[in-house]
Protein backbone atom coordinates (compact mmCIF):
# COMPACT_ATOMS: atom_id res chain seq x y z
CA UNK A 1 0.00 0.00 0.00
CA UNK A 2 1.44 3.37 -0.98
CA UNK A 3 1.94 6.11 1.66
CA UNK A 4 -0.61 8.29 -0.15
CA UNK A 5 -3.25 5.55 0.05
CA UNK A 6 -2.46 5.04 3.71
CA UNK A 7 -2.73 8.78 4.37
CA UNK A 8 -6.12 8.85 2.60
CA UNK A 9 -7.33 5.93 4.70
CA UNK A 10 -6.24 7.64 7.91
CA UNK A 11 -7.96 10.86 6.84
CA UNK A 12 -11.12 8.85 6.05
CA UNK A 13 -10.99 7.15 9.45
CA UNK A 14 -10.46 10.48 11.25
CA UNK A 15 -13.30 12.20 9.41
CA UNK A 16 -15.57 9.19 9.94
CA UNK A 17 -14.82 9.20 13.68
CA UNK A 18 -15.45 12.96 13.91
CA UNK A 19 -18.71 12.56 12.00
CA UNK A 20 -19.96 9.80 14.28
CA UNK A 21 -19.09 11.78 17.42
CA UNK A 22 -20.92 14.80 16.01
CA UNK A 23 -23.99 12.71 15.19
CA UNK A 24 -24.59 11.83 18.87
CA UNK A 25 -23.58 15.08 20.57
CA UNK A 26 -25.13 14.39 23.98
CA UNK A 27 -23.40 11.03 24.49
CA UNK A 28 -20.14 12.52 23.20
CA UNK A 29 -20.33 15.48 25.59
CA UNK A 30 -20.97 13.24 28.59
CA UNK A 31 -18.09 10.94 27.74
CA UNK A 32 -15.81 13.94 27.24
CA UNK A 33 -16.95 15.38 30.56
CA UNK A 34 -16.11 12.18 32.44
CA UNK A 35 -12.67 12.00 30.83
CA UNK A 36 -12.12 15.73 31.30
CA UNK A 37 -12.93 15.61 35.01
CA UNK A 38 -10.71 12.56 35.48
CA UNK A 39 -7.82 14.46 33.88
CA UNK A 40 -8.58 17.69 35.77
CA UNK A 41 -7.80 16.29 39.21
CA UNK A 42 -4.16 15.28 38.68
CA UNK A 43 -3.54 18.40 36.59
CA UNK A 44 -5.01 20.59 39.37
CA UNK A 45 -2.86 18.89 42.00
CA UNK A 46 0.16 19.43 39.78
CA UNK A 47 -0.70 23.13 39.52
CA UNK A 48 -1.08 23.32 43.30
CA UNK A 49 2.45 22.00 43.73
CA UNK A 50 4.03 24.36 41.16
CA UNK A 51 2.21 27.34 42.65
CA UNK A 52 3.25 26.36 46.18
CA UNK A 53 6.84 26.21 44.98
CA UNK A 54 6.54 29.67 43.45
CA UNK A 55 4.89 31.03 46.59
CA UNK A 56 7.61 29.69 48.91
CA UNK A 57 10.23 31.17 46.60
CA UNK A 58 9.15 34.49 48.14
CA UNK A 59 9.14 33.14 51.69
CA UNK A 60 12.74 31.90 51.61
CA UNK A 61 13.77 35.46 52.55
CA UNK A 62 12.61 34.34 55.97
CA UNK A 63 14.95 31.36 55.95
CA UNK A 64 18.02 32.45 57.86
CA UNK A 65 20.79 31.26 60.14
CA UNK A 66 22.21 32.55 63.37
CA UNK A 67 25.92 31.75 63.74
CA UNK A 68 26.90 32.07 67.43
CA UNK A 69 30.62 32.76 67.77
CA UNK A 70 32.62 31.55 70.79
CA UNK A 71 32.55 33.98 73.71
CA UNK A 72 36.22 34.95 73.36
CA UNK A 73 35.91 36.02 69.72
CA UNK A 74 36.32 39.77 69.33
CA UNK A 75 34.07 42.05 67.30
CA UNK A 76 36.92 42.78 64.84
CA UNK A 77 37.36 39.07 64.25
CA UNK A 78 33.60 38.75 63.88
CA UNK A 79 33.72 41.39 61.12
CA UNK A 80 36.48 39.46 59.32
CA UNK A 81 34.50 36.23 59.64
CA UNK A 82 31.46 38.03 58.22
CA UNK A 83 33.58 39.11 55.20
CA UNK A 84 34.61 35.50 54.73
CA UNK A 85 31.02 34.23 55.05
CA UNK A 86 29.92 36.66 52.34
CA UNK A 87 32.22 34.89 49.85
CA UNK A 88 30.51 31.51 50.36
CA UNK A 89 28.41 30.64 47.29
CA UNK A 90 24.69 30.70 48.06
CA UNK A 91 24.96 33.32 50.77
CA UNK A 92 23.00 36.45 50.07
CA UNK A 93 23.80 38.68 53.05
CA UNK A 94 25.67 38.58 56.34
CA UNK A 95 24.96 40.95 59.22
CA UNK A 96 27.07 41.19 62.34
CA UNK A 97 25.09 41.50 65.54
CA UNK A 98 27.58 42.56 68.20
CA UNK A 99 27.28 41.30 71.77
CA UNK A 100 26.42 44.85 72.93
CA UNK A 101 23.74 45.23 70.29
CA UNK A 102 22.43 41.79 71.16
CA UNK A 103 22.22 42.66 74.81
CA UNK A 104 20.38 45.88 74.03
CA UNK A 105 17.79 44.02 71.97
CA UNK A 106 17.49 41.27 74.53
CA UNK A 107 16.94 43.80 77.27
CA UNK A 108 14.31 45.55 75.17
CA UNK A 109 12.29 42.49 74.05
CA UNK A 110 12.75 39.93 76.83
CA UNK A 111 11.65 41.87 79.90
CA UNK A 112 14.63 40.54 81.85
CA UNK A 113 16.18 44.03 82.12
CA UNK A 114 16.55 44.01 85.90
CA UNK A 115 18.10 40.55 85.93
CA UNK A 116 20.61 41.56 83.27
CA UNK A 117 21.65 44.56 85.33
CA UNK A 118 22.77 42.16 88.05
CA UNK A 119 25.38 40.68 85.68
CA UNK A 120 28.88 42.10 85.75
CA UNK A 121 29.66 41.34 82.15
CA UNK A 122 27.76 40.74 78.89
CA UNK A 123 27.09 36.97 78.64
CA UNK A 124 26.11 37.16 74.97
CA UNK A 125 28.49 36.30 72.13
CA UNK A 126 28.87 38.12 68.84
CA UNK A 127 26.52 36.67 66.24
CA UNK A 128 26.52 36.52 62.42
CA UNK A 129 23.06 36.65 60.88
CA UNK A 130 23.17 34.91 57.49
CA UNK A 131 20.44 34.97 54.83
CA UNK A 132 20.94 32.44 52.02
CA UNK A 133 20.01 33.11 48.40
CA UNK A 134 16.54 31.81 47.48
CA UNK A 135 17.93 29.38 44.90
CA UNK A 136 20.21 27.87 47.57
CA UNK A 137 17.45 27.41 50.13
CA UNK A 138 16.58 23.77 49.70
CA UNK A 139 16.81 21.55 52.76
CA UNK A 140 20.01 19.96 51.45
CA UNK A 141 21.68 23.31 50.64
CA UNK A 142 20.80 24.78 54.04
CA UNK A 143 22.07 21.73 55.85
CA UNK A 144 25.35 21.82 53.93
CA UNK A 145 25.83 25.53 54.71
CA UNK A 146 25.08 24.93 58.38
CA UNK A 147 27.59 22.08 58.48
CA UNK A 148 30.33 24.16 56.80
CA UNK A 149 29.87 27.10 59.15
CA UNK A 150 29.77 24.88 62.24
CA UNK A 151 33.23 23.56 61.26
CA UNK A 152 34.82 27.01 61.65
CA UNK A 153 36.98 27.10 64.83
CA UNK A 154 35.54 30.42 65.98
CA UNK A 155 31.95 29.17 65.73
CA UNK A 156 30.25 27.87 68.81
CA UNK A 157 26.98 26.79 67.20
CA UNK A 158 24.80 27.42 64.16
CA UNK A 159 21.06 27.69 64.57
CA UNK A 160 19.07 27.04 61.42
CA UNK A 161 15.77 28.89 61.65
CA UNK A 162 14.30 26.81 58.87
CA UNK A 163 12.62 23.84 60.47
CA UNK A 164 9.33 24.97 58.93
CA UNK A 165 10.97 25.23 55.50
CA UNK A 166 12.13 21.63 55.76
CA UNK A 167 8.67 20.55 56.82
CA UNK A 168 7.13 22.50 53.99
CA UNK A 169 9.43 20.84 51.50
CA UNK A 170 8.42 17.47 52.92
CA UNK A 171 4.75 18.40 52.48
CA UNK A 172 5.47 19.34 48.87
CA UNK A 173 7.12 15.94 48.48
CA UNK A 174 3.94 14.24 49.71
CA UNK A 175 1.85 16.36 47.33
CA UNK A 176 4.10 15.48 44.41
CA UNK A 177 3.67 11.79 45.19
CA UNK A 178 -0.08 12.36 45.44
CA UNK A 179 -0.03 13.92 41.97
CA UNK A 180 1.64 10.91 40.41
CA UNK A 181 -0.63 8.48 42.28
CA UNK A 182 -3.75 10.37 41.22
CA UNK A 183 -2.44 10.52 37.66
CA UNK A 184 -1.98 6.75 37.55
CA UNK A 185 -5.37 5.95 39.12
CA UNK A 186 -7.36 8.44 37.08
CA UNK A 187 -5.41 7.52 33.95
CA UNK A 188 -6.61 3.94 34.49
CA UNK A 189 -10.11 5.40 34.87
CA UNK A 190 -9.81 7.17 31.52
CA UNK A 191 -8.63 3.91 29.92
CA UNK A 192 -11.69 2.13 31.30
CA UNK A 193 -14.10 4.85 30.16
CA UNK A 194 -12.70 5.01 26.63
CA UNK A 195 -12.45 1.22 26.43
CA UNK A 196 -16.06 0.74 27.46
CA UNK A 197 -17.34 3.47 25.14
CA UNK A 198 -15.50 1.89 22.23
CA UNK A 199 -16.81 -1.54 23.19
CA UNK A 200 -20.41 -0.28 23.05
CA UNK A 201 -19.79 1.36 19.72
CA UNK A 202 -18.31 -1.83 18.30
CA UNK A 203 -21.40 -3.75 19.43
CA UNK A 204 -23.66 -1.09 17.87
CA UNK A 205 -21.87 -1.32 14.56
CA UNK A 206 -21.54 -5.07 14.49
CA UNK A 207 -23.39 -5.50 11.21
CA UNK A 208 -21.24 -2.91 9.49
CA UNK A 209 -18.04 -4.48 10.80
CA UNK A 210 -19.19 -7.90 9.65
CA UNK A 211 -19.97 -6.72 6.13
CA UNK A 212 -16.71 -4.77 5.95
CA UNK A 213 -14.75 -7.89 6.86
CA UNK A 214 -16.86 -9.85 4.39
CA UNK A 215 -15.75 -7.70 1.47
CA UNK A 216 -12.11 -7.95 2.53
CA UNK A 217 -11.57 -5.28 5.18
CA UNK A 218 -8.50 -6.15 7.24
CA UNK A 219 -8.48 -5.95 11.02
CA UNK A 220 -6.35 -2.80 10.81
CA UNK A 221 -8.89 -1.20 8.45
CA UNK A 222 -11.81 -2.06 10.70
CA UNK A 223 -9.96 -0.96 13.85
CA UNK A 224 -8.68 2.37 12.55
CA UNK A 225 -11.86 4.49 12.98
CA UNK A 226 -12.23 3.23 16.56
CA UNK A 227 -8.64 4.21 17.36
CA UNK A 228 -9.33 7.70 16.03
CA UNK A 229 -12.53 7.87 18.09
CA UNK A 230 -10.51 6.95 21.19
CA UNK A 231 -7.85 9.55 20.43
CA UNK A 232 -10.50 12.22 19.89
CA UNK A 233 -12.11 11.33 23.23
CA UNK A 234 -8.72 11.52 24.99
CA UNK A 235 -7.66 14.78 23.37
CA UNK A 236 -11.12 16.34 23.79
CA UNK A 237 -11.14 15.34 27.47
CA UNK A 238 -7.68 16.89 27.96
CA UNK A 239 -8.76 20.16 26.31
CA UNK A 240 -11.85 20.16 28.53
CA UNK A 241 -9.66 19.59 31.61
CA UNK A 242 -7.50 22.54 30.56
CA UNK A 243 -10.57 24.77 30.18
CA UNK A 244 -11.90 23.69 33.59
CA UNK A 245 -8.52 24.49 35.17
CA UNK A 246 -8.38 27.92 33.55
CA UNK A 247 -11.90 28.67 34.79
CA UNK A 248 -10.98 27.55 38.33
CA UNK A 249 -7.86 29.75 38.23
CA UNK A 250 -9.88 32.78 37.16
CA UNK A 251 -12.24 32.15 40.06
CA UNK A 252 -9.34 31.87 42.54
CA UNK A 253 -7.34 34.89 41.38
CA UNK A 254 -9.19 37.45 43.55
CA UNK A 255 -9.15 35.55 46.87
CA UNK A 256 -5.53 34.46 46.38
CA UNK A 257 -4.45 38.04 45.65
CA UNK A 258 -6.14 39.19 48.90
CA UNK A 259 -4.43 36.43 50.86
CA UNK A 260 -1.03 37.25 49.34
CA UNK A 261 -1.55 40.92 50.14
CA UNK A 262 -2.14 40.08 53.81
CA UNK A 263 1.21 38.30 53.82
CA UNK A 264 2.81 41.23 52.07
CA UNK A 265 3.53 39.13 49.00
CA UNK A 266 2.94 39.92 45.35
CA UNK A 267 2.24 36.26 44.59
CA UNK A 268 0.02 35.58 41.58
CA UNK A 269 -1.44 32.17 40.64
CA UNK A 270 0.06 30.75 37.46
CA UNK A 271 -1.77 28.47 35.00
CA UNK A 272 -0.35 25.52 33.07
CA UNK A 273 2.84 26.30 31.19
CA UNK A 274 3.07 25.43 27.52
CA UNK A 275 5.04 22.34 28.39
CA UNK A 276 2.48 21.21 30.99
CA UNK A 277 -0.32 21.77 28.46
CA UNK A 278 1.61 19.63 26.01
CA UNK A 279 1.92 16.88 28.60
CA UNK A 280 -1.79 17.05 29.42
CA UNK A 281 -2.88 16.92 25.77
CA UNK A 282 -0.31 14.27 24.87
CA UNK A 283 -1.29 12.19 27.90
CA UNK A 284 -5.00 12.42 27.02
CA UNK A 285 -4.32 11.46 23.41
CA UNK A 286 -2.17 8.49 24.42
CA UNK A 287 -4.68 7.24 26.99
CA UNK A 288 -7.53 7.51 24.46
CA UNK A 289 -5.57 5.62 21.86
CA UNK A 290 -4.51 2.90 24.29
CA UNK A 291 -8.03 2.42 25.72
CA UNK A 292 -9.47 2.17 22.20
CA UNK A 293 -6.75 -0.17 21.02
CA UNK A 294 -7.19 -2.62 23.89
CA UNK A 295 -10.97 -2.61 23.47
CA UNK A 296 -10.88 -2.89 19.67
CA UNK A 297 -8.28 -5.64 19.80
CA UNK A 298 -10.41 -7.66 22.23
CA UNK A 299 -13.81 -7.19 20.66
CA UNK A 300 -13.15 -6.92 16.93
CA UNK A 301 -11.54 -10.32 16.65
CA UNK A 302 -14.76 -11.89 17.89
CA UNK A 303 -16.71 -10.43 15.00
CA UNK A 304 -16.19 -12.69 12.05
CA UNK A 305 -18.55 -12.68 9.09
CA UNK A 306 -21.14 -15.47 9.09
CA UNK A 307 -23.15 -15.82 5.95
Amino acid at each position, binding site marked *: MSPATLAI*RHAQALLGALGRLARSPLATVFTLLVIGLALTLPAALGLLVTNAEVATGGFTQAVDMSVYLKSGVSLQRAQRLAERARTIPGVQSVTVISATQGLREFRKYSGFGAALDALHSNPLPNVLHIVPQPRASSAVDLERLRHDLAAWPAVDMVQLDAQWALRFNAILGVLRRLVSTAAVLLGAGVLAVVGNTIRLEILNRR*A*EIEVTKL*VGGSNAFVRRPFLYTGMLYGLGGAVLAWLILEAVLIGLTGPVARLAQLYGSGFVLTGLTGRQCGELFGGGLALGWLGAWVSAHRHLRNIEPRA
Partner: protein
Amino acid sequence: MIELQRVSKRYPNGREALTNVSFFVDRGEMVFVTGRSGAGKSTLLKLIALLERPSRGTVSVNGRNLGALKARHIPAFRRQIGVVFQDHKLLADRPVFDNVALPLVVAGAPFPEISKRVRAALDQVGLLGKERMLPMELSVGEQQRVGIARAVAGKPALIVADEPTGNLDPELSIEVMRLFKRFRDVGVTVLVATHDQHIVREFGSREIMLDSGEMRGGDPDPLPSLVANR
Protein backbone atom coordinates in the same frame (compact mmCIF):
# COMPACT_ATOMS: atom_id res chain seq x y z
CA MET B 1 -10.53 -21.83 -10.58
CA ILE B 2 -12.22 -23.81 -7.82
CA GLU B 3 -11.20 -27.24 -6.72
CA LEU B 4 -12.57 -29.33 -3.87
CA GLN B 5 -10.96 -32.62 -2.87
CA ARG B 6 -12.83 -35.01 -0.57
CA VAL B 7 -14.21 -32.15 1.43
CA SER B 8 -16.34 -32.80 4.52
CA LYS B 9 -17.75 -30.28 6.91
CA ARG B 10 -19.08 -31.12 10.33
CA TYR B 11 -20.41 -28.24 12.43
CA PRO B 12 -19.63 -28.00 16.15
CA ASN B 13 -23.21 -29.14 16.89
CA GLY B 14 -22.37 -32.47 15.23
CA ARG B 15 -24.38 -31.96 12.05
CA GLU B 16 -22.47 -33.17 9.00
CA ALA B 17 -23.27 -30.62 6.28
CA LEU B 18 -20.98 -32.00 3.57
CA THR B 19 -19.58 -35.46 3.07
CA ASN B 20 -16.70 -36.26 0.76
CA VAL B 21 -17.40 -33.65 -1.90
CA SER B 22 -14.99 -33.29 -4.81
CA PHE B 23 -15.34 -31.20 -7.94
CA PHE B 24 -13.54 -28.81 -10.22
CA VAL B 25 -14.73 -25.57 -11.80
CA ASP B 26 -12.72 -24.12 -14.65
CA ARG B 27 -11.91 -20.46 -15.15
CA GLY B 28 -14.77 -18.62 -16.90
CA GLU B 29 -17.26 -21.37 -16.19
CA MET B 30 -20.75 -20.82 -14.77
CA VAL B 31 -21.88 -23.63 -12.49
CA PHE B 32 -25.07 -24.16 -10.51
CA VAL B 33 -25.02 -25.83 -7.12
CA THR B 34 -28.45 -27.35 -6.62
CA GLY B 35 -30.29 -29.33 -4.00
CA ARG B 36 -33.03 -28.98 -1.46
CA SER B 37 -32.81 -26.67 1.53
CA GLY B 38 -30.29 -28.07 3.99
CA ALA B 39 -28.53 -30.12 1.32
CA GLY B 40 -25.27 -28.28 2.02
CA LYS B 41 -25.29 -25.64 -0.74
CA SER B 42 -24.66 -22.72 1.61
CA THR B 43 -21.94 -24.59 3.46
CA LEU B 44 -20.22 -25.35 0.17
CA LEU B 45 -20.23 -21.68 -0.82
CA LYS B 46 -19.03 -20.60 2.63
CA LEU B 47 -16.04 -22.91 2.31
CA ILE B 48 -15.14 -21.33 -1.03
CA ALA B 49 -15.58 -17.78 0.30
CA LEU B 50 -13.55 -18.76 3.38
CA LEU B 51 -16.39 -18.02 5.77
CA GLU B 52 -15.97 -21.56 7.09
CA ARG B 53 -13.12 -24.04 7.15
CA PRO B 54 -13.57 -27.68 6.07
CA SER B 55 -13.33 -30.45 8.66
CA ARG B 56 -11.57 -32.70 6.15
CA GLY B 57 -10.24 -32.33 2.61
CA THR B 58 -8.82 -29.35 0.76
CA VAL B 59 -10.40 -26.36 -0.96
CA SER B 60 -8.37 -24.45 -3.54
CA VAL B 61 -9.41 -21.22 -5.22
CA ASN B 62 -7.41 -19.59 -7.97
CA GLY B 63 -4.58 -22.07 -7.40
CA ARG B 64 -4.37 -21.33 -3.67
CA ASN B 65 -4.95 -23.93 -1.02
CA LEU B 66 -7.25 -22.10 1.38
CA GLY B 67 -6.25 -24.38 4.24
CA ALA B 68 -2.72 -22.96 4.10
CA LEU B 69 -3.91 -19.34 4.02
CA LYS B 70 -2.87 -17.43 7.13
CA ALA B 71 -5.45 -15.33 8.96
CA ARG B 72 -3.78 -12.08 7.97
CA HIS B 73 -4.06 -12.98 4.27
CA ILE B 74 -7.79 -13.68 4.44
CA PRO B 75 -8.87 -10.04 3.81
CA ALA B 76 -6.75 -9.86 0.65
CA PHE B 77 -8.27 -13.17 -0.50
CA ARG B 78 -11.82 -11.96 0.09
CA ARG B 79 -11.14 -8.90 -2.05
CA GLN B 80 -10.51 -11.26 -5.00
CA ILE B 81 -13.95 -12.81 -4.89
CA GLY B 82 -17.41 -11.28 -5.04
CA VAL B 83 -20.01 -12.81 -2.78
CA VAL B 84 -23.78 -12.37 -3.19
CA PHE B 85 -26.04 -13.35 -0.32
CA GLN B 86 -29.67 -14.34 -0.26
CA ASP B 87 -30.34 -11.65 2.37
CA HIS B 88 -27.94 -9.39 0.40
CA LYS B 89 -26.30 -8.05 3.62
CA LEU B 90 -26.54 -4.38 2.71
CA LEU B 91 -25.90 -1.64 5.27
CA ALA B 92 -29.37 -0.23 5.91
CA ASP B 93 -28.15 3.19 7.05
CA ARG B 94 -25.92 3.82 4.03
CA PRO B 95 -27.02 4.90 0.57
CA VAL B 96 -26.65 2.57 -2.39
CA PHE B 97 -23.45 4.30 -3.51
CA ASP B 98 -21.68 3.68 -0.17
CA ASN B 99 -22.79 0.05 -0.11
CA VAL B 100 -21.43 -0.66 -3.58
CA ALA B 101 -18.27 1.36 -2.88
CA LEU B 102 -17.40 -0.55 0.30
CA PRO B 103 -15.15 -3.21 -1.29
CA LEU B 104 -13.33 -0.49 -3.25
CA VAL B 105 -12.87 1.70 -0.16
CA VAL B 106 -11.56 -1.31 1.72
CA ALA B 107 -9.12 -2.02 -1.10
CA GLY B 108 -7.84 1.56 -0.91
CA ALA B 109 -8.93 2.72 -4.38
CA PRO B 110 -8.69 6.46 -5.04
CA PHE B 111 -12.02 8.27 -4.97
CA PRO B 112 -12.34 9.10 -8.71
CA GLU B 113 -11.86 5.43 -9.50
CA ILE B 114 -14.36 4.38 -6.81
CA SER B 115 -16.92 6.76 -8.25
CA LYS B 116 -16.34 5.47 -11.78
CA ARG B 117 -16.51 1.80 -10.87
CA VAL B 118 -19.55 2.15 -8.62
CA ARG B 119 -21.41 3.82 -11.48
CA ALA B 120 -20.26 1.14 -13.90
CA ALA B 121 -21.42 -1.62 -11.53
CA LEU B 122 -24.77 0.05 -10.93
CA ASP B 123 -25.17 0.53 -14.67
CA GLN B 124 -24.57 -3.18 -15.21
CA VAL B 125 -27.39 -4.10 -12.81
CA GLY B 126 -29.67 -1.35 -14.16
CA LEU B 127 -29.70 0.86 -11.06
CA LEU B 128 -27.83 3.90 -12.32
CA GLY B 129 -29.45 7.01 -10.84
CA LYS B 130 -30.38 5.38 -7.53
CA GLU B 131 -26.99 5.96 -5.87
CA ARG B 132 -28.34 8.28 -3.17
CA MET B 133 -31.28 6.07 -2.14
CA LEU B 134 -31.23 3.93 0.98
CA PRO B 135 -31.66 0.16 0.54
CA MET B 136 -35.02 0.34 2.36
CA GLU B 137 -36.37 2.62 -0.35
CA LEU B 138 -35.72 0.00 -3.02
CA SER B 139 -37.71 -3.08 -3.96
CA VAL B 140 -36.45 -6.52 -2.93
CA GLY B 141 -35.27 -7.20 -6.46
CA GLU B 142 -33.42 -3.91 -6.59
CA GLN B 143 -31.80 -4.59 -3.21
CA GLN B 144 -30.58 -7.92 -4.54
CA ARG B 145 -29.12 -6.17 -7.58
CA VAL B 146 -27.32 -3.68 -5.28
CA GLY B 147 -25.78 -6.70 -3.58
CA ILE B 148 -24.67 -8.01 -6.97
CA ALA B 149 -23.27 -4.60 -7.93
CA ARG B 150 -21.26 -4.60 -4.72
CA ALA B 151 -19.93 -8.10 -5.52
CA VAL B 152 -18.79 -7.11 -9.02
CA ALA B 153 -17.57 -3.55 -8.30
CA GLY B 154 -14.10 -4.81 -7.40
CA LYS B 155 -13.92 -6.73 -10.71
CA PRO B 156 -13.38 -10.12 -9.07
CA ALA B 157 -12.33 -13.18 -11.07
CA LEU B 158 -14.88 -15.27 -9.15
CA ILE B 159 -18.44 -14.55 -8.13
CA VAL B 160 -20.13 -16.77 -5.57
CA ALA B 161 -23.87 -16.33 -5.11
CA ASP B 162 -25.98 -18.05 -2.45
CA GLU B 163 -29.63 -18.27 -3.51
CA PRO B 164 -29.49 -14.87 -5.19
CA THR B 165 -33.04 -15.35 -6.50
CA GLY B 166 -34.51 -16.81 -3.33
CA ASN B 167 -36.73 -13.80 -2.67
CA LEU B 168 -37.50 -12.92 -6.28
CA ASP B 169 -40.39 -13.78 -8.58
CA PRO B 170 -39.58 -15.97 -11.61
CA GLU B 171 -39.26 -13.04 -13.99
CA LEU B 172 -36.80 -11.18 -11.78
CA SER B 173 -34.95 -14.42 -11.13
CA ILE B 174 -34.35 -14.94 -14.82
CA GLU B 175 -33.18 -11.34 -15.09
CA VAL B 176 -30.67 -11.75 -12.27
CA MET B 177 -29.37 -14.99 -13.79
CA ARG B 178 -28.92 -13.26 -17.15
CA LEU B 179 -26.82 -10.74 -15.28
CA PHE B 180 -24.57 -13.50 -13.95
CA LYS B 181 -24.38 -15.00 -17.43
CA ARG B 182 -23.15 -11.66 -18.79
CA PHE B 183 -20.35 -11.67 -16.24
CA ARG B 184 -19.54 -15.24 -17.24
CA ASP B 185 -19.38 -14.08 -20.88
CA VAL B 186 -16.61 -11.59 -20.00
CA GLY B 187 -14.51 -14.30 -18.35
CA VAL B 188 -15.68 -14.24 -14.75
CA THR B 189 -16.14 -17.60 -13.03
CA VAL B 190 -19.61 -17.80 -11.51
CA LEU B 191 -20.86 -20.27 -8.91
CA VAL B 192 -24.56 -19.98 -8.07
CA ALA B 193 -26.39 -21.98 -5.41
CA THR B 194 -30.10 -22.35 -6.12
CA HIS B 195 -32.99 -24.69 -5.45
CA ASP B 196 -34.81 -23.41 -8.51
CA GLN B 197 -34.70 -26.23 -11.07
CA HIS B 198 -36.54 -24.07 -13.57
CA ILE B 199 -33.62 -21.65 -13.72
CA VAL B 200 -31.05 -24.41 -14.08
CA ARG B 201 -32.94 -25.87 -17.02
CA GLU B 202 -33.39 -22.44 -18.58
CA PHE B 203 -29.67 -21.69 -18.54
CA GLY B 204 -28.38 -25.20 -19.19
CA SER B 205 -25.13 -24.67 -17.32
CA ARG B 206 -23.28 -27.42 -15.51
CA GLU B 207 -24.92 -28.52 -12.30
CA ILE B 208 -23.44 -29.81 -9.07
CA MET B 209 -26.28 -31.52 -7.25
CA LEU B 210 -26.14 -32.00 -3.51
CA ASP B 211 -28.36 -34.29 -1.48
CA SER B 212 -27.90 -34.45 2.29
CA GLY B 213 -24.34 -33.21 1.92
CA GLU B 214 -23.30 -35.68 -0.77
CA MET B 215 -22.89 -35.17 -4.49
CA ARG B 216 -25.41 -36.76 -6.85
CA GLY B 217 -24.89 -37.20 -10.59
CA GLY B 218 -23.10 -34.30 -12.23
CA ASP B 219 -19.43 -35.16 -12.35
CA PRO B 220 -18.55 -37.20 -9.30
CA ASP B 221 -15.07 -37.72 -10.69
CA PRO B 222 -12.81 -34.81 -9.62
CA LEU B 223 -10.64 -35.40 -12.74
CA PRO B 224 -7.48 -36.23 -10.81
CA SER B 225 -5.20 -35.81 -13.82
CA LEU B 226 -6.39 -32.26 -14.38
CA VAL B 227 -6.05 -31.54 -10.70
CA ALA B 228 -2.52 -32.89 -10.58
CA ASN B 229 -1.42 -30.61 -13.41
CA ARG B 230 -2.46 -27.47 -11.57
